[in-house]
């Protein structure tokens, strides 16, 4: 068997996507606006763009999803420059509910016909943020990040002083609501007042409220977005969030920026703690943090037998892949291939034999002997079954399992859970496939 030693960054230049897990930029913007309290995401496109997106997330989160569409038709696509459909939409939305914010974003259809949403947005008399997210450019991470930047650009007031107790967290799109909450709690334990943008930890965390909300039912408040530039530091997690941090620094150049490609595994969490200790002047972290570090180190030792003998294929959004790659490598797992939905600097220097921007068709093209286990969303299930491979479900979409919002793989704590889960999946797969 030929052993591939060199790592090549290969972008699938096929004319055909086969079994894609790539998701569109407007879908990313949808989630970002759902991380704002009492927001109505408004997708400027055909009704199907919003309908597909709504069903997709409703099934992933097992929660109702607030989302509206400007419902562009073949007639309005030709005759209307967006003015009619957007102003009608806003009118019809505020007739029924009182959103604190309307998040207006485009799609391939309305970008192709060339609507000037920035001009239209400026004429609206409701709190509204607009962003251009054609679905023929970029993907989920870009849409999420672009919407986040747009909120900072259009809502955050410039400031010339900072509050060192205040920290702004900018999480990438693949961090689950619970992971965001855990990161916030972790930072809060160091004495920071943490504000998160976008914040899914209280909107899509799967809580039972008092009544069915027609708008997003949690998330960062609009007034807190306005005040973001008063923070002392901004922490971005995931390469896709760097532009958002820079956007915030434009509002107040005194804000210090710390970037983490991910917060998975021992080394990355150590790095975060170093930064937080430096920033606070503390000598040691709060007690439970140390205990979780010990548990993670123990888990590394317990799990390395299973992970070390396993060759992985990782599929999904780049920032999530960087995290998975790190923690699996820390436990000695070999990564045969990383297959990313879109290109990103997050894919630089990953510890993997191959790095491909592609789809599940690329997995089928790899030699079956090359890997034992695949990690990805729902779509990897049929493939793993057909090829007799092990499987762990992570990322978007996961329609097969409940509790996606409660998955927690990051920091010391989540890392310990993740490694044990991973090792158990491997062992069970070996039993079932008769390898043990």
């Amino acid at each position, binding site marked *: 068997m030929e052993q591939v030693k060199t790592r090549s960054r290969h972008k699938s230049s*096929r*004319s*055909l*996507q*086969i*079994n*894609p*897990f*790539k*998701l*569109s930029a*407007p*879908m990313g913007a949808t989630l970002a606006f759902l991380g704002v309290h009492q927001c109505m995401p*408004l997708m400027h*496109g*055909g*009704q*199907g*763009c*919003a*309908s*597909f*997106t*709504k*069903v*997709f997330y*409703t*099934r992933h989160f097992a929660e*109702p999803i607030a989302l*509206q*569409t*400007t*419902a*562009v*038709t*073949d007639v309005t*696509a030709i005759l209307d420059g967006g003015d009619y459909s957007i102003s*009608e*939409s*806003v*009118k*019809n*939305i505020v007739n*029924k509910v009182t959103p604190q914010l309307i998040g207006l974003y485009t*799609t*391939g*259809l309305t970008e*192709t*016909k060339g609507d000037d949403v920035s001009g239209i947005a400026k004429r609206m008399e409701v709190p509204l943020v607009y962003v251009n997210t054609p*679905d*023929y*450019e970029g*993907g989920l991470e870009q849409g999420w990040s672009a919407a986040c930047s747009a909120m900072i650009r259009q809502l955050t007031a410039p400031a010339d002083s900072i509050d060192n107790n205040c920290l702004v967290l900018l999480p990438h799109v693949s961090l689950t609501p619970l992971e965001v909450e855990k990161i916030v709690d972790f930072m809060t334990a160091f004495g920071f007042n943490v504000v998160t943008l976008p914040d899914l930890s209280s909107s899509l965390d799967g809580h*039972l409220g008092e*009544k*069915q909300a027609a708008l997003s039912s949690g998330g960062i408040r609009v007034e807190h977005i306005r005040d973001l530039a008063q923070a002392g530091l901004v922490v971005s997690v995931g390469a896709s969030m760097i532009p958002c941090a820079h956007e915030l620094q434009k509002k107040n150049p005194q804000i210090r920026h710390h970037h983490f490609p991910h917060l998975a595994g021992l080394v990355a969490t150590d790095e975060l703690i170093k930064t937080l200790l430096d920033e606070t002047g503390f000598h040691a972290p709060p007690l439970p943090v140390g205990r979780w570090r010990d548990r993670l180190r123990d888990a590394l030792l317990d799990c390395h037998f299973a992970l070390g003998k396993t060759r992985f294929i990782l599929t999904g959004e780049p920032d999530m892949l960087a995290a998975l790659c790190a923690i699996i490598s820390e436990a000695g797992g070999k990564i045969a291939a990383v297959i990313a939905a879109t290109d990103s600097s997050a894919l630089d220097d990953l510890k993997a034999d191959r790095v491909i921007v592609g789809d599940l068709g690329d997995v089928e093209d790899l030699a079956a002997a090359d890997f034992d286990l695949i990690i990805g969303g*729902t*779509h990897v299930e*049929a493939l793993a079954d057909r090829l007799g491979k092990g499987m762990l479900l992570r990322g978007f979409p996961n*329609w097969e399992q409940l509790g996606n919002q409660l998955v927690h793989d990051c920091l010391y704590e989540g890392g310990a859970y993740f490694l044990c889960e991973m090792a158990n999946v491997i062992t069970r797969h070996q039993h079932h496939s008769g390898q043990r």
Partner: protein
Amino acid sequence: MATKPHIRELLAESACEHNQPKKTACNAPIPGATTGGCAFEGAQIALFPFADAAHLVHGPITCLGASWETRATPTSWPARDLTQVGLTTDTCLNDVVFGGEEKLAVAIDQTITRYHPQALFVYATCVTALIGDDIDKACREAAARHGIPCVPVHAPGFVGSKNLGSRLGGEAILTHLIGTLEPEVTTPFDINLIGEYNVTGDMWQYSPLLEELGIRILSTLSGDGRIAAIRTAHRAKLNVIVCAKSLVSITRKMQDKYGIPWISLSFYGQRDTSAGLLAIADALGDPALIERTQALVAREEAKLGEQLAPYRELFAGKKAVLNTGGNKTWSIAAALQDLGIEVVATAVRKATEDDRAKAREYLGEHGVLMMDPGAEQAKLIDEKGAHILLAGGRSLYTAIKKGIAFIDVNQEKKISYGAYAGLLNLAEDLRHALESPVFSLAGRRAPWNR
């Protein structure tokens, strides 16, 4: 040959009851107040169940990326199930600027070489329709190159609703496939099932009964469908539309062109299933067949009656409120009544005149037809003393507040409620819901809220 269907003409379909009262299009989505899928999704629903055909979506990633592998339409096709294979050209900026036809041609070739399908469907989407990519030409040339039927589907999302899209999908089948192959044998009892997509195996609940009666399913559009079969559909003796008003146009046109009569029915609940089987036998008109069908219906009803007896005992005196739309407003009501549950109210806001009339017929004069279910249902649960609410996910809160059981009827169901056997599944789910402690526990007051 112009293959693009005439949208105006399809919207004004004469056999479509939406068009009886006023002559306007059934689809005019309101900006900012619209739910429901687009025409592309409708075409996908109608055609994707052909598991022996490849389905190539010419558009940006949202159209296919968010939608493939979402519908459980099982197939008995022994080779790779192409319904669950996602194929798209993933239109990018470069294609929008310079056109996507070259890329499409390559994608078609790669698809056919890789999967050897019995046919290829190429779906236009909003962006590729807007930039004017010629999918007719691409399909014509590909068919000549590869020697398999290549069917252009002109249902870009922005032309209208899911219903119109399903109709456009049917139109593509009629134009390009039906009548292009002769069946090896014909029988006097050959039927086509139109609009039966075999969602969660619904069709398989009753297809063995048809087989037992000697009725042959010549082809389906498109549940467990085969391309070779649909190409012979013009030789059927009867078209049977199953719960799908959107495909009336194709059956009407087949009547004009091939003289095939059609009937429309549903296989939901015991009464509809029995009535449906008898309607098929009647339409085929053979006295012996009718007699056989009556005997089979009696046998099945007796068998089901026995199986349902313990449930009927359990459900005696139970009252339900139903909040859904379309034909479900009465078809689920009928199924519940078959189980011995009294349906005290059903929502008819999202129903046609015909559906409303049927709902009235099933519920009787004391049943409430809710025009504003959101506001009415909570009050009605109290007034009528309902024990269970069947509705979309949004109404869960109403059920919890009232402390009664809840079933989400609009979720993509994982289990079939179709025909006789499906009624047992529904009965089992109802029993679970009525016995479950979760609805009162979830509504339990927190210890700190005295």
